């Protein structure tokens, strides 16, 4: 059954000040109703300040990252959207007309990007409202109904979240996302689902909705046009009591329309962050790496930044491989995000140069890397601390000789054709050299030595017999 899914994604902007007043935007740590003033609590007579320039700039930047055209040299109205709820002290919410239009992200068209304002936080159980959040600027991104399955919706949201994270313009804390989802099945009616606040939630809500609506359609029932709420705990949607049918939208006469000129957009374009999906394509071309590797590298902006810095100094292909495997592995193991990494790109480049020059083995490299992540220092120093450093040929030979001497049974087994005995012996050599030798080299020399000895012995015997 064909379906159409469209999203309206809200995310808080990471500005220090609210949209129309000077109050701080912190509503998580501070005691309730401390970051408030007559403006954001809509005291009678209070007039808004001019909209926060940084918030408007952030929306322009996000619009550009999503491939939108910015609405230029025309009034962008800050509108009043009226509804009656305890979280809304003015009785209306500010919401701008589109700032960006006609964008695109991973095949989904972006209809518009605009500015909004968060309401306060109402606790219906306690009957209290905290207005610290009231007036925090939001970006709202509206897509066309271009997604056709829960999986596609999830994929799009993931990509979108990556763009938002990348921009650095939205609040980094989790749980600030709100994704109102519109879904209609062929032969059905459009239904809106609110109260979704994660990618996973969107996926589950859509999945449930599809099931519910399909069952209704199959039974020949009419799907009412309605707004439903997603219940995270039960993974279902339920009808939402919605009194608002009309927001009585008017341009806010308290606020002059915003007009954006080309110069402003170009200034932002120059300093803005490259969007991850665009960066991914560039990395593929510029460094001749695979799409998959590029995808891993751009998953976090700081990771991609680090990659590009290191790739300037060492063979990009080696760097790419290391990022995809070793570095990602170490970071995952230590549960770190790239932004939390403390070492410099020079230090990592130094390490990879040693690997490239075969001064150390990749395995040793990974040990150093782990140390580097824990306690950043110059790779040489870490190498010393770890007592690593590639073994000299003589040392390796001595260790191999000693191993052969101490393990006659294994030697005998190997010569008797038991190949796995070689790995056992190699392990012993590794232990003896405390991991400083390259396992590939150990195997090479060890097998050469065992074969060589055999040959030599044979030849000696031959000599004797002669």
């Amino acid at each position, binding site marked *: 059954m064909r379906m159409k899914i469209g999203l309206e994604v809200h995310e808080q902007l990471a500005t220090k000040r609210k949209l129309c007043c000077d109050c701080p935007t912190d509503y998580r740590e501070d005691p309730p109703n401390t970051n408030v003033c007559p403006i954001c609590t809509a005291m009678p007579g209070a007039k808004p300040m001019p909209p926060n320039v940084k918030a408007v700039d952030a929306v322009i930047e996000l619009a550009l990252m999503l491939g939108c055209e910015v609405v230029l040299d025309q009034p962008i109205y800050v509108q009043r959207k009226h509804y009656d709820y305890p979280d809304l002290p*003015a009785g209306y919410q500010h919401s701008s007309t589109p700032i960006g239009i006609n964008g695109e992200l991973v095949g989904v068209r972006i209809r518009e990007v605009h500015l909004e304002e968060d309401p306060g936080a109402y606790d219906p159980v306690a009957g209290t409202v905290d207005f610290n959040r009231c007036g925090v600027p939001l970006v709202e991104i509206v897509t066309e109904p271009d997604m056709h399955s829960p999986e596609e919706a999830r994929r799009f949201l993931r990509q979108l979240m990556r763009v938002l994270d990348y921009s650095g313009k939205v609040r980094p804390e989790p749980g600030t996302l709100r994704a109102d989802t519109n879904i209609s099945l062929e032969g059905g009616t459009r239904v809106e689902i609110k109260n979704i606040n994660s990618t996973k939630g969107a996926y589950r809500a859509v999945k449930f909705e599809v099931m519910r609506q399909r069952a209704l359609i199959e039974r020949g029932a009419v799907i009412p046009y309605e707004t439903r709420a997603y219940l995270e705990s039960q993974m279902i949607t339920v009808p939402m009591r919605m009194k608002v049918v009309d927001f009585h*939208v008017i341009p806010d006469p308290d606020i002059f329309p915003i007009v954006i000129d080309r110069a402003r957009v170009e200034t932002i374009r120059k300093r803005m962050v490259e969007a991850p999906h665009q960066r991914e394509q560039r990395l593929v071309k510029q460094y001749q790496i695979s799409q998959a590797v590029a995808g891993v590298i751009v998953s976090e902006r700081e990771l991609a930044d680090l990659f590009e810095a290191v790739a300037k100094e060492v063979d990009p292909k080696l760097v790419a491989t290391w990022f995809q495997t070793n570095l990602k592995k170490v970071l995952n193991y230590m549960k770190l995000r790239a932004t939390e990494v403390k070492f410099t790109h020079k230090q990592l480049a130094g390490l990879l140069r040693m690997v490239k020059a075969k001064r150390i083995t990749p395995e040793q490299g990974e040990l150093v890397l782990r140390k580097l992540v824990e306690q950043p220092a110059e790779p040489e120093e870490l190498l010393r601390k770890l007592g690593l450093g590639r073994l000299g040929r003589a040392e390796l030979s001595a260790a191999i000789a000693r191993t052969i001497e101490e393990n006659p049974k294994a030697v005998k087994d190997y010569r008797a054709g038991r190949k796995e005995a070689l790995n056992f012996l190699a392990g012993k050599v590794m232990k003896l050299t405390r991991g400083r030798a390259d396992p590939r080299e150990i195997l090479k020399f060890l097998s050469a030595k065992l074969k060589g000895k055999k040959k030599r012995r044979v030849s000696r015997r031959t000599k004797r017999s002669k």
Partner: protein
Amino acid sequence: MGRGTIEKLGAIQQGELSATENVQQALDRIKKLDKKIKAFIELNPNALAEAEAVDCKLKRGEHMGKLAGLTIGIKSNINVKGLRATCASRTLENYVSPYDAEVIRRVRDAGGIIVGMNNMDEFACGSSGETSSFGPTDNPVAPGHIPGGSSSGSAAAIAAGMCDICLGTDTGGAIRNPASHCGVVGIRPTQGLVPAHGLIELAVSFDQIGPLAPDVYGAALMLETIAGHNPKECTSLDSPSVNYSDKLGIGIENIRVGTSSKFSELTDSAVMGVIDGAVEKLHDLGAEVVEVELPNLEKSLSAYYVIMFAEFFSATRKFDGRKYGRRIEEVCGDEVLRRITCGDYISRKDQHDRHYKRALQVRTLMRREFGEALNKVDVIVGPTVPKLPHQLGTKLSPAEMYAYDYLTSPINLAGICAGTVKAGEASGIPVGLQVQGKVLGEETVLRVMRALEAVK
């Protein structure tokens, strides 16, 4: 009382009259007259203490502001910290302002002493002063008649000599209309000249705070005190400050004064007779009188009401009964409820284009029409209100009541400035001449007003 603002200020500065005495006189007069007139809703309990502080500074010879020692009345829709900004409504009858409006801050800085909060039409919804929840205000100079509105208490307080200067607000004529009926001076400044922060709105895009005073000098003095950019406000104009009071006496020789035949079409002949006389006086003083075209003037009234309804509906959504007193619809008077209901309807999505959008087009038209007319002349003069004030208690239909705003509301649509000064009397009732100026043309408007005032 009884002397002009200049003389009063001189007496205070020379120590002949202390600020405390001035305030005491005002309070005595209010006590004596206000039971009948109802110009005040609440008095400032600290007025005398504030006056003593001003006197101390005066005695020490400290530099004092322009309003030092003058008694000021404030319309009840302007926030004065510690006093109730009731908007003459039951909805806000217990709302004590937690902050000072920007204009109040400026008045205090200038040494003005706030004596109390003036009566008004409820939420400024009215042109007669009769819609106040605290009872209608009487007209001190034409007892038994309405004082006009919605700054009814402000105009009446000045006319009765209860205080020196008042701050009113003008959305569709609410300063000029009562100034005309009460025979006092009132200025509606250019949209955005005076900061609006702290003004509880009727319709934000038309509201302006302005002075009401016994003479043009007092109005000019107050205007220059409160005018000027407030960077914390979106719609505040960044205009250079002007000392209007210094330039009042320049005269009006060679000033071009426009009149329009439209005015007499819309105005009662008794009123028009007084106005024609005033225009003649201006001509005698050396002004050149020119006819200007205002072809769409009469269209503005309905456009004004449509936009105001929509903005008023929006502005009153915060009075939902959760934070301030009771829900507005449950306790307000008929006129306020009518405007909310109309605004609710007009701003509905399906009605938006039919009314609101067209009204906005008329607004643009008015801007252009007045702009073009004022390119040809320095000011346009005409009547303020098309008819004389009715007797208190007369039943008027809403349409009849709204018609009071025929000649004042176009100025609010155009966003320009206008002042009213007494032109004479008809049947013993004052009639005000409306002097309409360009954007930021207050200086010229005040000069013309002063010239007429000086002939009397």
